[in-house]
């Protein structure tokens, strides 16, 4: 049970970190496109 909880927790943290990094990079692309207009 402890293994399942820890694996699930690690997976959720990973997806959250990936999401934050990628959305941050993507937002910068948006801001750049807006600035060009």
């Amino acid at each position: 049970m402890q293994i399942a909880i820890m694996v699930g927790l690690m997976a959720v943290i990973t997806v959250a970190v990936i999401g934050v990094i990628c959305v941050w990079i993507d937002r910068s692309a948006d801001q750049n496109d807006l600035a060009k207009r």
Partner: protein
Amino acid sequence: MFSFADLVHLHFLLNHFPSVGLLVGLGIYILGLLGKSDDLRRAALATFVLIALLGLPAYMTGNVAASAIEKQPGVSKASIEAHEGLALVSLAVLELVGAVAWLGLWQHRRFGRISGATLTTVLILALATFGLMAQTSNIGGEIRHPEILTNKTVISAGIGPFARELSLSFKSLPWGWAAAETIHFIGLCLIMGVTLVLNLRLLGFMKGIAFADLHRLLPWAIVGFAVNTLTGMVFFASSPGNYVPASIELLLYKLIFIVIAGINALYFTVLDDAWKVRAGDDAPGQVKAMAGAAIFLWLAVIYCGSMLPFIGGAF
């Protein structure tokens, strides 16, 4: 196809890239910064990405070289362990250099310029990596060249032994391997998902979408790649005995495909060929060939990785 001696030889060939190669890249980069030359900066960033990729097989073949000589008379096991530990730290920082350098190339492609923060981060990390690599190389040289030792004691490897112990202790976590494997598969899904969407468009599917629009998805694949590099190295560094010598050859094939796939990703980021493909356009022949190669290469990486326990006898 690779003999044991070939793999040992490969370590002596590849280990010059993260040390001497990095110095060459650093020289070009500093020239690019001083001369404000975008071309020189991009050339240096691409060099850093390539060296970060070559650092992976350089590290892994090191375990083969170690198993070949560790029982020979006159070879200090402490030196080998100090070299291995410091190499792990150096590799971790080198991979960070590669990731930020790729972000710089992506920014240049997307925005037409590289942000000052990215350029500064790459410079600081590359200088730190070179310092670490120089010390790693020095200790590596002392393993087999007693003539360069000024005294009989091994130079202190600082954080090296600690990093080695930390990686080996990963095995004692009951949930560690399962969690790393799960995260490795999340990264794999990101790489393969983005690879398929981008390259199928270039091969002629979904022609209504311009490549530049899909290009925004590339960071997702690169972050997936970073996650997999991290977890993959955790697997290898914590349990090298699982891979050496039984399945190191298959693992090396996987790494060869990864390095070529990385060069393929650089092609789409650095060169203009694919970038010019607008909505409704048919991609030129060479772009289609590279797109087909990308799908093949990542399938080959997945095949080699998943077959490690079956063909290579790992685990």
